[in-house]
């Protein structure tokens, strides 16, 4: 894909890959971090309220929904896969939460909604791992399928959520931190731990890095690949929980096109779409970069049309800076 400088390529069997390795996980991440810090500095000059505590809290809350999706997406992309269906799966869980809460309590609604999301993820996983369907196609199909489910379940009309406790779950604070942010951090910590500290986690990297090698080494590639998509689905369900509880409405179009934002966050975070390389820490930073971007564009009151221009340009620039600074 990307051009590589001859000097950076001789001594390895893996060609382009090795170049990415040379700005290894760590270096890569400091690269992204550099981009984020730069963005924060610039922002703080553009608007003096940017660094105010309430605004930073806002940013943290605002990024939580896509951020959570991105954490699940990281698993999938690490295996060299992709999950285009997370936005739609989020939609399904959102309408389920709303629908079930009409008659049941949170204690029933929350597990059911998340289980449903995991079930859809399972379908993705089986299709990819055992039916040999390319992830892009499998999850593109699910994108359409799950969205259809959400519309059919609601008949197209949003279901209001009047449950106070549920509302507070999404809008309350714990230790002065917005609950959604805490849920994001929780998902992040667990995922980070699984990826770095468990055999499953390392195998996920191995599958993405060289699926055949993993299989020859006795890694249960099919099973693990399936689990990865179940995780991505379940995490989308958690993200849906944050969505529904914050906005207290189950609208069938919830999460439309979020998949692109989530993937962007992952890739901006330095995870390679060609598998085997990346981290959830990077994904968090990527999410923040995109979130801060949106925030400062709003703060400076940039015209929405022009905002699109900036967003597009700045994502590219962020990745460019990252690449450069990590080559150094």
């Amino acid at each position, binding site marked *: 894909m990307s051009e590589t400088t001859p000097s950076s390529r001789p001594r*390895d069997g893996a060609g382009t890959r090795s170049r990415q390795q040379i700005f*290894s996980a760590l270096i890569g991440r400091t690269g992204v971090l550099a981009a984020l810090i730069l963005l924060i500095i610039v922002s703080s000059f553009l608007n003096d309220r940017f660094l105010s505590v309430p605004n930073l809290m806002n940013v943290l809350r605002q990024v939580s929904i896509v951020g959570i999706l991105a954490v699940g997406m990281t698993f999938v992309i690490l295996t060299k896969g992709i999950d285009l269906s997370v936005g739609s799966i989020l939609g399904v869980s959102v309408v389920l939460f709303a629908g079930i809460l009409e008659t049941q309590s949170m204690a029933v609604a929350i597990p059911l909604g998340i289980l449903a999301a995991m079930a859809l993820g399972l379908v993705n996983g089986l299709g990819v791992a055992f039916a040999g369907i390319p992830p892009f196609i499998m999850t593109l199909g699910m994108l359409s399928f799950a969205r259809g489910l959400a519309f059919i379940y609601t008949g197209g009309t949003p279901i209001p959520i009047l449950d106070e406790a549920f509302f507070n779950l999404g809008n309350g604070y714990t230790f002065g931190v917005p609950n959604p942010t805490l849920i994001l951090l929780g998902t992040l910590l667990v995922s980070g731990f699984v990826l770095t*500290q468990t055999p499953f986690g390392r195998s996920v*990297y191995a599958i993405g890095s060289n699926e055949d090698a993993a299989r020859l*080494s006795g890694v249960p590639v099919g099973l693990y690949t399936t689990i990865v998509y179940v995780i991505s689905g379940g995490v989308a369900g958690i993200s849906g929980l944050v969505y529904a509880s914050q906005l207290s409405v189950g609208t069938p179009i919830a999460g439309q096109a979020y998949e692109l934002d989530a993937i962007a966050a992952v890739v901006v975070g330095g995870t390679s779409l060609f598998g085997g390389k990346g981290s959830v820490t990077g994904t968090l930073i990527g999410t923040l970069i995109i979130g801060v971007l949106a925030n400062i564009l709003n703060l400076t009151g940039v015209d929405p049309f022009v905002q699109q221009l900036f967003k597009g340009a700045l994502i590219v620039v962020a990745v460019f800076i990252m690449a450069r600074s990590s080559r150094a």
Partner: protein
Amino acid sequence: MPRNGSAGAGATSRRRSIPASNRVRPPGFGRGATMRGATMTDLLLDARGLTKRFGDNVVLRDVDLSVAPGEVHAIVGENGAGKSTLIKILGGVHRADGGSMRLEGREISLSSPQAALDHGIVVIHQELSLAPHLTTVENIFLGHFLRNAFGMLDHRRMRARTDELLKRLSIDIDPTIPVGRLSIAQQQMIEIAKAISVRAKLLILDEPTAVLDANRVDTLFELIGRLKSEGIGVVFISHHLEEIFRIADRVTVLRDGSRTGTEPVRDVDHDWLVSRMIGREFESYTSKQRQRGEVVLELEGLSSEGAFEAISLQVRAGEIVGLAGLIGAGRTEVAQAIFGVRKHSGGTMRLNGAAVRLSGPRAATRRGIAYVSEDRKAFGLLPNRPVRENMTISNLARFTSFGVLRLSRERAFVREQIEELDIRLSGMQATISTLSGGNQQKALLGRALAGRPKVLIFDEPTRGVDIGAKREIYRFIEDLAEEGAAILVISSEMEEVIRLSDRIIVMRSGRVAAELQRAEASEETIMRAATMA
């Protein structure tokens, strides 16, 4: 029987030419042969009548293989004979279309690599199979990670075991960097470490020495010796027959997917192996005298950061210069600098007397330089493209007029090369990654000629190539020199450099350690210069 020259046709016609019935078999080595002293029951592995097809292409025909505990059983055969396929069946990668396998007397069927591992069958495959992004530690324990009390990864213990293994194999690398950044040789050693990190009953090595230099081969053989003494059975594949005589107890010969013999090594000699492998004796071949022309390629004090320093050498038209040294000496880097893929910080390079600075491979190709990389997979193959496209990609202009490819012209060239190099394949449309390793290598040599080069650099040109093919490649290289090409051959095989070169330049840790004329060149002199013993 007569060797049929033409490639595709050759492959098939030769298959037909050996009916299973009247195949030469030494007495007592029919089906179910046992080694002297060993009876069926104490055999570790006993595979019978293994058969494998790919489409309508039968690549293994009714092959038997048995290994006793503590036995090293070698398998030899030409490129494409079916060695790796046999191994892949034993390793659970391929399912045999026919035949049976017994392990310690019990019938087994291997549905997956995992199943083979569970039975204690550990395979090092011909192509490296490590996860490039993972560290040495992670690669070694991939599939059987060590866990702590909480079922989590036990990094400390794995690190300790790794250091132990690396020390035992005297591998000197940082086990915490991604293996993709290590040399092929280093990666091969790591695969070996990975293989012995699990308790194996049967260890299978498919051409492990192809990418190793003399020292590392010694290390490996010591290791195999130790495993033997522990009663572990070993299957060993190599194209270096002398290695067979060094460590094998028995040897099985494959030809075109059929077993043409199984003998205790002490009962056979080099010529017997060769005749069983290729179905005829070698006619002895002496390279013709070549007359040298002008200096075509000249390096003067060429240096490159962290790779090599002050390299000066000359290659004349019609001359073959060998570049010897241990792996890591920096030969590839020199080649890369000549070819323009590596910036050189100091010194000058001259082509036909004129100083040049090449911006990249394209410029080099334009100026008539061709380079065949040592790393086929990473820098050579277009894996999912046909052989035809693989062989002509380096100079499509040659097959183009008015901006349109002339496919007939292309086919003619490819057909010619396939015959010239005797490449065995089902047809030039065959996807190159389905060819056997040796035949892939030949195809890439053919590619080098598409550009009608005047300077050719071959980096490990016979890596993974059988002796028959080797001779063909030597002749091929010598013919090129005869036609006036200036040739630089990088090889870690002493006898190869000696066999081919008019002059030999020995490199040691990035510097020229010695320059030897053909007369003074011997394994000793080269080794001494290379290692500074």
